[in-house]
């Protein structure tokens, strides 16, 4: 079923963006986020970008103070997901210009719009930055 969740978490472990593609209760989310964040944040640069946790494989990548964590099932191409994270970051970069944690925090809705254009039901919908950003730009113009 591909991507199960996408989490953006800062160095302090605070969630900055969370999008789940399977339903978990709030308690389940809290527990899952706590465990995964603890595991991933403790890892060093020399270790690989994949962490096995319960039935998930977490593919993660760090950009400055932000960690991008993507939970996938065991049957997903890990490197493709790893680069998908980078594609997301580049897309945000193109929109915000040198994106940082604050941009995502204060433009939560924009971040959601972007994800919405990129992933649907755990599958990748679009990988062209131009196409991803078109609806958002249209909206910006309108307002």
């Amino acid at each position, binding site marked *: 079923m591909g991507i199960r969740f996408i989490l953006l978490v800062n160095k302090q472990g605070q*969630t900055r963006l969370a999008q789940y593609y399977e339903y978990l209760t709030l308690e389940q989310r809290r527990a899952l986020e706590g465990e995964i964040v603890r595991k991933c944040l403790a890892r060093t640069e*020399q270790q690989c970008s994949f962490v096995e946790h*319960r039935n998930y494989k977490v593919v993660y990548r760090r950009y400055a103070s932000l960690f991008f964590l993507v939970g996938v099932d065991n*049957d997903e191409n890990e*490197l493709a997901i790893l680069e998908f994270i980078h594609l997301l970051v580049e897309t945000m970069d193109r929109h915000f210009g040198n994106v940082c944690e604050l941009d995502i925090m204060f433009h939560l809705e924009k971040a959601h719009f972007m994800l919405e254009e990129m992933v649907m039901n755990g599958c*990748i919908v*679009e*990988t062209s*930055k131009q196409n991803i950003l078109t609806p958002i730009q249209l909206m910006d113009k309108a307002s």
Partner: protein
Amino acid sequence: MALSGMRGLSVFISDVRNCQNKEQERLRVDKELGNIRTRFKNEKGLSPYEKKKYVWKMLYIYMLGYDVDFGHMEAVSLISAPKYPEKQVGYIVTSCLLNENHDFLRLVINTVRNDIIGRNETFQCLALTMVGNIGGREFAESLAPDVQKLLISSSCRPLVRKKAALCLLRLYRKNPDVVNVDGWSDRMSQLLDERDLGVLTSVMSLLVALVSTNHDAYWSCLPKCVRILERLARNQDVPQDYTYYGIPSPWLQVKTMRALQYFPTIEDPNTRRSLFEVLQRILMGTDVVKNVNKNNASHAVLFEALALVMHLDAEKEMMSQCVALLGKFIAVREPNIRYLGLENMTRMLMVTDVQDIIKRHQAQIITSLKDPDISIRRRALDLLYGMCDVTNAKDIVEELLQYLSTADFAMREELALKAAILAEKFAPDLSWYVDVILQLIDKAGDFVSDDIWYRVVQFVTNNEDLQPYAAAKARDYLDKPAVHETMVKVSAYILGEYSHLLARRPGCSPKEIFSIIHEKLPTVSTSTVAILLSTYAKILMHTQPPDPELQDQIWAIFNKYESCIDAEIQQRAVEYFSLSRKGAALMDILAEMPKFPERQSSLLKKAEDTELDTAEQSAIKLRAQQQQQASNALVVTDQRPANGSLPVGQLSLVKMPSMSINVDADVAGQGLTNTNGTLSIADPQPATPSADLLGDLLGPLAIEGPPSAVAPSEQNLMSGSGLEGVSNAMDALALAPVEEQSNSVQPIGNIAERFHALCLKDSGVLYEDPYIQIGIKAEWRAHHGRLVLFLGNKNTSPLVSAQALILPPSHLKMELSLVPETIPPRAQVQCPLEVVNLRPSRDVAVLDFSYKFGTTMVNVKLRLPAVLNKFLQPISVTAEEFFSQWRSLSGPPLKLQEVVRGVRPLFLPEMANLFKSFQLMVAPGLDPNPNNLVASTMFYSESTRAMLCLIRIETDPSDRTQLRMTVASGDPVLTFELKEFIKELLVSIPKPSIAPAPAPPQVQPVSPAAGSLDPGAMLAGLL
């Protein structure tokens, strides 16, 4: 900074960000929630802008982990808003906050449909995305035709069609019938002619879902996929924006190759040739480059190509090219590539016959087992396990053993199990096997299940050459300091049987053997004490001519245990004592165990099943799966004999010879060995035999000759001597009938006993049935507890609808973390459970656990061992401290006294032991009267903090069934609860009844009064 156009939202976010701590944050969030709630109440006054703002705030709060239990209606209602900005928020927030079963979704189904069939593209996209994310069955039924129409419509723009494709995928998963295979396969094939890469990416995901269940219908898509792959690989007609670091959409390439792996083979020679050309190009043409992103992307494609090559079973040359590549990968510095190299090498093992080439990399893989990264270590372990065979077993197992001593806790269990399986599967000789298992027990005893040491006993018993060797080894291990209890068990058993073979060696006289084993007795649990008693009896029998001194010593021990609380031990003590007085007859009665019938190891069986599963789980291994189906089918028929007789193959896995007797005895109406009785039901999925393996193993010990002949005499002995051996059976009996009403699945072992055992120790099995095993591991610190529930699926198919609910008593705060709904085959999931003790109380928490296996719904209610004594810590106090405290707590309600009658007679040392096991520290000599006992302990709860408790018991040596008990502490509730708790300990034994005829409706391990007061106990009592 242009703040999202919603000032209020930005202000709130920055307020939350500026909070110094969690408490402040909570206050701020609560304030905001209150505000939103009030604003929503008079909705009329809200502008669409305000509504939008509040709904975003709700989503933000929800993301921070706070419950937002209102305002869902407002979010959903925005979907019907006429303007895009509101509608968009409505759709997005709804799909984040609600799940597919939420009632509110039904309310908007019409609006959603109108948006989908309407003319506004942007509305179509929003609606399709939401349905694609959270649409349920109802959506599937009412929307699927519209969505299909959009997907194939020539007038629709790509931006709508790509969303329609993934929306249809969701609806198809919810209800496969919405896609009519006959008509749709042609449509799919046409869709793959699409030029737009966005649409193709989505359509390819849809195709993967469709072919994974039915590839036959979609053959016509195969050449199209190959053509897409060619187009990308040759970079023909790929827009710049779909090129990622010079690589034409790596994601679409990967997906396309994934789809191809669902077709079992490619028959058309032209298609096959074109595909292999592309693959060859990828294999040869992927170079390591400096740019990380480019490198990752090209290797993503390369790894997928490797998987496809393996799947297609290419000619040998290409295969060895793949292995060579992987061999290179597992040695590189880049950790991601190393990880994937190991992972893919493991996959390769399953599919093709390349073991020998992979073996050349063994040294490198072993190095990875010591990698600082646990992710990599796990992959290395899996690979080593998979590549092990007779030729390299010795090396690999010894590596695993060596690694075991330094391995992190998280991996030990898996390591131990894998080492045990490999040792058994590929042992070059049996003495090596015995060595390995003993080392395993020594290094990781906690993780060596009983199955494993039973197997050692079985091998040793059946191989005379092995016996002196095993005995000598066992003797050596007992000399070590801090011997694991499992080691005590296996050593005691082997030495009981075979230590006489060592008699001439130094340090191995019966007396010496006895004393080294007996040293361990004070530290072991009751099940081990039972084994030790048998060992003593055996030693006595083997000591010829008899050694009067040793005899007296052992007799004294038997004597002592004749009044043990544990019925099993008591029975053994009484029987061995009277048997050992029979002189020469003892020799016959206690003769060596007969050989066990040869049978397949339960461990190996498990391992085989697991292998089948792993192959089944993964889509890549489709071909491997097909190959294995034949053997799979065999296993199944083996388990379910057509004539409905007892499924012997399965039964004989773990049980020891006495099993069949138990069943017979049960049929004969003895009703004593009830736990095993369930086996006699010809259930198609037989219960894994018997919790009481120990009993089975040791049962026939007291008897001579082939077990089956003696069974009745064992039974007679039990009932003849009028012992309390029935009490266990009673518990079980009381459980069985009630259980049957709701669940057709029989628990394995006695739930009440497991609970009682867990009250005394911190890890063990809480519940087990043929499908699932629930284990528990607990740590207690002051008034906090951390339990981990281990839910293990024992089967080859997943357990679904798993649900765990904690029913905590009012004095415990309990938080159970995520329990996944599905437990994959053969997998174990861990669910931490945090416990905080608020107040003293004896109430018991209950775990309400249910799952579905096939069509069987199983529901059990289990008491959790978060009981009062877990919050006690033994503490020793000086006489001075004790007496000053004792005096200052002068009378009720802080100090309570009670004369307790009907106490089970215990000698003071036994009572002291009992107290010790419940964390009450006995202070000998504090009370001048030798018939009295004084104890102290520290109790922890949130309300009382750490509080000292003092206990005094005054016994009457002329009548041990009554005593006077005084309990004192600084908290009246604590004093009362502790007093009742201790009282329950002292009077708790269920009275032996002669015949357990009508099963009592409730188990009564605690006093009835306490039981009826406590809702948790009442619930659990129903089990």
